[in-house]
């Protein structure tokens, strides 16, 4: 076994880049593992290419890359061990990491299992779009708005003449709309899935939100204004959304304004906010708590991101969604505290650096609280039918889950054994969040008691043949 590094960081988005470079700057040996081929995570996807792109083309997307240039430059100047193309598939309780390394090999690609160990770990695994199951959501042509945005950043793809419909709510949807508008694209229609009355409910928090983070709030209202001016037809208070088609999406059906609507549609972007990716934190058995307003589990962390394991920190959206700006800050904070815990930074110094960061975060969190209320998750029952698949991999339906609960399955792990929900390759990433909400609603239990799917290795499937290779080394 190779010597453990001081710190391993998983994820090279805003939080992971800040954490890894800060730790390296304090003299720690750092291993930064990232699944993507290029640094930046999702929000700064392809940062180096986008920041270098022509301002008449994809460069227009660069407006949402604030901080990326500095973060990536810091990475490139740092001596830390950065491994792109590394898919972490197991982390043991004693912080041994196993990953599948993708590397170019002559004209092709080769994959090899690699292992390494670390004294401390910072998880910066980010967030994913909240799964919003509705009839037909598994049809090709139904995609997350985040996915559409990724297609734009990665391949320069924007919707073509077949047209686009957006369904959902939240800042990302508005941002995407503005981004494609800048590049000559548009949405034909927007189905607002927010139940009526959300703005009224959130309104009392507005002054605090403005005070706490004026920049984000002004940006947000600008995006709302651009939605109004985008020319898209807006349907409000949409319920009973269904995607229909044979081999791929052909049209949509939904209710709005007291009547049923049908729209031809081959590309639908769906968005209901983002939730932390908790696969690694769950695998490690860290404590999590249900966030009622955000309707998801979040790892239990102290204000510096330290988890229930004293050697593991969680930075960025993976520890609760607060956005890219704060992710950088949280990455820095976690790295300072890890350096302190490893005895490489005196407490006085780490505290001196940490205090203003904590204060800024607390201030900006006020805007987040407003957004949480304004964009509270769409109630599952607004769109679910009995035969809607909750689990995309195994096709397990709402009715099958309810039946398992009736049979006495009081938690997601029993439902999994009864129905195969969560047994497919995605490891419950896409059914888990809905499953917990559904079981809690059925049983009347709080989700903290319902619990979550037990996560097991491999976090991502590997080939059995991958194990035939020689003993892995770092």
């Amino acid at each position, binding site marked *: 076994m190779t010597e453990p590094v001081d710190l391993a960081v998983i994820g090279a988005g805003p939080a992971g880049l800040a954490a890894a470079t800060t730790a390296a700057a304090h003299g720690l040996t750092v291993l930064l593992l990232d*699944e*993507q*081929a290029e640094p930046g995570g*999702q929000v700064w996807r*392809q940062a180096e*290419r986008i920041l270098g*792109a*022509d301002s008449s*083309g*994809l*460069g227009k997307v660069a407006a949402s890359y604030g901080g990326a240039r500095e973060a990536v430059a810091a990475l490139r100047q740092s001596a830390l061990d950065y491994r792109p193309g590394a*898919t972490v598939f197991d982390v043991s309780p004693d912080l041994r990491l196993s990953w599948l390394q*993708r590397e*170019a090999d002559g*004209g*092709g*690609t080769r*994959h090899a299992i690699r292992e390494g160990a670390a004294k401390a770990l910072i998880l910066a695994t980010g967030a*994913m*779009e909240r799964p919003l199951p509705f009839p037909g*959501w*598994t*049809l*090709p*042509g*139904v*995609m*997350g708005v*985040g*996915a559409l945005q*990724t*297609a*734009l950043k*990665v*391949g*320069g*793809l*924007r*919707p*073509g*003449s*077949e047209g686009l419909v957006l369904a959902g709510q939240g800042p990302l949807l508005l941002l995407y709309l503005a981004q494609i508008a800048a*590049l*000559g694209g548009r949405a034909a229609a927007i189905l607002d899935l927010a139940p009526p009355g959300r703005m009224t409910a959130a309104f009392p928090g507005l002054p605090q939100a403005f005070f706490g983070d004026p920049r984000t709030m002004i940006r947000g209202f600008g995006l709302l204004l651009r939605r109004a001016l985008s020319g898209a037809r807006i349907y409000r208070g949409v319920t009973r959304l269904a995607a229909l088609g044979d*081999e*791929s999406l052909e049209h949509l059906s939904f209710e709005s304004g007291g009547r049923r609507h049908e729209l031809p549609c081959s*590309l639908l972007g769906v968005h209901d906010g983002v939730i932390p*990716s908790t696969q690694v934190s769950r695998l490690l058995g860290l404590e999590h708590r249900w966030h009622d307003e955000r309707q998801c589990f979040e790892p239990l962390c102290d204000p510096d991101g330290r988890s229930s394991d004293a050697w593991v920190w969680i930075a960025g959206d993976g520890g609760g969604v607060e956005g890219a700006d704060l992710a950088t800050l949280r990455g820095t904070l976690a790295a300072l505290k890890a350096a302190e815990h490893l005895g490489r930074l005196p407490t006085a110094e780490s505290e001196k650096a940490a205090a203003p960061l904590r204060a800024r975060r607390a201030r900006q969190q006020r805007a987040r609280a407003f957004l949480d209320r304004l964009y509270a998750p769409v109630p599952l029952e607004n769109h679910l039918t009995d035969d809607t698949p909750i689990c*995309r*991999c*195994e*096709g397990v339906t709402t009715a099958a889950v309810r039946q398992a609960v009736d049979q006495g399955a009081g938690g997601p792990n029993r439902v999994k054994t009864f129905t195969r929900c969560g047994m*497919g*390759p*995605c490891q419950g*990433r*896409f059914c888990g969040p809905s499953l917990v909400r559904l079981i809690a609603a059925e049983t009347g239990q709080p989700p903290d008691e319902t619990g979550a799917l037990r996560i097991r290795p491999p976090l*991502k*499937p590997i*080939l059995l043949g991958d194990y035939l290779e020689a003993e892995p080394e770092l």
Partner: protein
Amino acid sequence: MTWFVRTGSGEAVRVIVDGAPLEARAGESVATALLAAGHRSFARNPASGAPNGTYCLIGQCFGCLCTIDGRPQSQACLTPVAEGMVVETGEQVGTGDD
């Protein structure tokens, strides 16, 4: 009528998809190259037999699996294109005996 159109510009990379050459853009993923070429689904779901939808493009949904350079069940959204790369879409293994 087009599903997706390209904006911006980039260096061209040639990959082989189901035996036919396809021009992709350097730095993009196999998934976006396929979407740009009008592939709506890359494989069928082994449980239901229905075409997989590519939902997330960030490696979470496993709806973009295909065979890349001979490696089956690869996540196309996480694999950058490379010159000469061979991609196979279509029926997924395990749909049963039929």
